[in-house]
């Protein structure tokens, strides 16, 4: 402790004791006389201000430490003290360092009286509030930045209690900062994974970053909002976890755009944005109206029956029956009676007349599936019906008229069968008046996200569920699959997932095991391509809706304008 010889009311014992206490103190300690002249100045005060004792002792407090703006106040205070008036014991005011910086100090004053009970010295103990002030300023600065962004940001402590939320988070959840502060995140955020998997917990506990999970939240007013969320751990300077950060984005506009896209790429019950299908959607009404026989070819599960039904629905026969016969599933004799019917007594068990499918489809459409599987004998009878519009039921003597449009389908190459003599050439040409070839799903991966959306919507309706879709990993698996079973296989996969899915989004665990195993082996990159194409469509649709205005488009899609520009440039989209 440094000292001066101006006033010294202490005994030598007191002085030693005081010296020790003051020297070791972790606070700034300055002792001044009633005129404000500095008498003692401890080490902490030296460190904080940068002054050496010989530079300050005996000098006026206000002259050394007080910034110009506060000097008048100080002079008034010491004048009041000299006049025997009281002054505040606790105050916050700044002091000036040797370098001219200002430190905000919380001062606690004690008055040391002499034996005549007069104030002899003023003991000022100060706590430097500058770090707190800086922290507060930084916090306010950070809050201002966070409030200016459109994504919701919530920070939590390790117990998952909310520390802060920005304006966007407040708007989406309908909870203001004061209401949310200190509450458990799940009570405010109300996300449809709070019950099973808390990404914040995962991030805090394992230091793992969780990105781009698509879920829904339920606002305070019970408004369900689709969101995309990411979480990360919040660490102190030493890397210790002190909480978690949750960032989420409102996907309402994106979801609406997806719905619009689905409608845009739907035709009757067929969903596709593949070029082959888009051409087909254009010409299908004309083919339907023409009444021509149509041969639909394509692998099993590609949706041949849907095209046949669309042809029927778009034709003038739409109010009459659509009758399907699976030719491959019936033996020859049965198929004949099934197609043309039989009369009572035609064979042993024919106890009464039975109308055939031609009769049942009268005025409508007869869909002959797996036409490549029928025998040559049936082929010739079928050819006769197509040529003469007449047929005779089994055991019948009268010829019946057939006003039926025939649409057939096969997953075989009929022309090869013609060449090998398995299929009649004349029938081939009769059936193949208008050929339609349906591409397999592996050749139109751009349709997979659309079809997934469609099946999710349908199964939600059928099973009374509210599954929001597939999470990123599950989607990646489905986009990379080869689909030997085509659309039917995809439909079965989604239905399988619906049975196993106990949460609101389908994760890889809910997919059939063969898909998960296969996906571990390879990623052929088709998935990413399909996602990009889907995204490209969404951007084009949003641009169209907003008259090409990039600012409005970015706003609608919930992304920054610069991000939109980057994406448009990468995808070669001209505004």
């Amino acid at each position, binding site marked *: 402790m440094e000292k001066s010889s101006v006033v010294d009311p202490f005994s030598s014992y007191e002085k030693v004791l005081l010296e020790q206490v003051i020297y070791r103190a972790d606070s700034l300690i300055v002792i001044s006389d009633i005129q404000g002249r500095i008498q003692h100045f401890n080490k902490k005060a030296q460190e904080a201000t940068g002054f050496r004792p010989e530079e300050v002792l005996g000098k006026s407090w206000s002259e050394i430490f007080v910034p110009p703006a506060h000097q008048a106040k100080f002079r008034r205070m010491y004048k009041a003290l000299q006049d025997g008036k009281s002054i505040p014991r606790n105050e916050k005011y700044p002091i000036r360092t040797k370098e001219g910086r200002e430190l905000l100090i919380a001062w606690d004053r004690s008055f040391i009286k002499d034996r005549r009970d007069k104030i002899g010295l003023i003991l000022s103990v100060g706590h430097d509030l500058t770090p707190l002030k800086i922290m507060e300023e930084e916090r306010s600065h950070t809050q201002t930045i966070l409030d200016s962004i459109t994504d919701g940001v919530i920070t939590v402590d390790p117990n998952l209690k909310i520390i802060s939320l920005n304006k966007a988070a407040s708007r989406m959840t309908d909870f203001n900062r004061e*209401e949310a502060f200190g*509450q*458990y995140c*799940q*009570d405010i*955020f*109300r996300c*449809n994974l*709070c*019950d099973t998997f808390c990404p914040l917990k995962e991030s805090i506990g394992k230091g793992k970053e969780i990105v781009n999970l698509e879920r829904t939240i*339920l*606002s*305070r007013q*019970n408004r*369900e909002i689709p969101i995309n969320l990411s979480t990360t751990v919040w660490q102190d300077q030493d890397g210790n976890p002190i909480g978690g950060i949750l960032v989420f984005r409102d996907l309402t506009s994106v979801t609406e755009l997806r719905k619009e896209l689905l409608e845009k790429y739907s035709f009757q019950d067929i969903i596709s944005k593949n070029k082959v299908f888009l051409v087909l959607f254009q010409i299908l009404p004309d083919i339907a109206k023409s009444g021509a026989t149509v041969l639909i070819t394509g692998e099993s599960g590609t949706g041949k029956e849907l095209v046949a039904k669309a042809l029927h629905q778009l034709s003038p026969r739409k109010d009459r029956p659509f009758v399907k016969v699976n030719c491959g599933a019936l033996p020859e004799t049965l198929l004949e009676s099934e197609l043309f019917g039989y009369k009572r007594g035609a064979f042993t068990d024919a106890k009464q007349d039975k109308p055939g499918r031609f009769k049942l489809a009268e005025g409508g459409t007869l869909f002959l599936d797996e036409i490549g599987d029928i025998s040559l004998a049936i082929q010739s009878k079928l050819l006769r019906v197509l040529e003469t519009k007449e047929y005779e039921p089994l055991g019948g003597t009268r010829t019946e008229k057939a006003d039926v449009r025939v649409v057939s389908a096969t997953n075989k190459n009929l022309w090869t069968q013609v060449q090998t003599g398995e299929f009649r050439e004349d029938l081939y040409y009769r059936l193949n008046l208008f050929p339609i070839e349906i591409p397999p799903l592996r050749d139109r991966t751009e349709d997979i996200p659309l079809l997934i959306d469609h099946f999710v919507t349908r199964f939600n309706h059928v*099973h*009374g*569920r*509210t599954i929001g879709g597939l999470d990123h990993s599950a989607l990646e698996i489905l986009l990379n699959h080869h689909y030997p079973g085509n659309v039917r296989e995809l439909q079965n996969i989604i239905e399988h997932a619906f049975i196993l899915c*106990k949460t*609101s989004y389908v994760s890889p665990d809910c997919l059939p095991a063969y898909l998960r195993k296969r996906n571990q082996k390879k990623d052929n990159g088709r998935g990413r391509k399909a996602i990009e194409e889907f995204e490209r469509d969404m951007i084009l649709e949003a641009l169209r809706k907003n008259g090409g205005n990039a600012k409005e488009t970015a706003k609608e899609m919930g992304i920054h304008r610069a991000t939109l520009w980057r994406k448009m440039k990468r995808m070669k989209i001209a505004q």
Partner: protein
Amino acid sequence: MKQEKNDIAVCVLGGRICPRFDLSHEIHIYDVKTSDREPSEKIDVSSLSPLESLNLLVGKEVRTVIVGGIQERYQAIFLDHHIKVIWGVMGEVNDVIQVYKKKSLYPGIGRVFDFNKPAR
């Protein structure tokens, strides 16, 4: 004469009021006429869809459902069956029940504490 039921159903997740009806893993049924602090029945609904849980509560003829959030479509079904829904409730189940018994629980109440409960 059929005795009118006075049961309430509380959607629970980890000892607290479940933040969403569709996330409920457990539903506790309380008979508010009694002074019991324990539920008369605890139903595991973790394997049920929200609609199945809803139908189950309708079948049990509960009078009131207490939950954090609930989609409007589910609220509408409850209302059709004259079941009152007190939503927007946060807190520990026991606290909420005590506040309900004091007739102080209302939709949108937010965080609920039972200030009269003994300190631990």
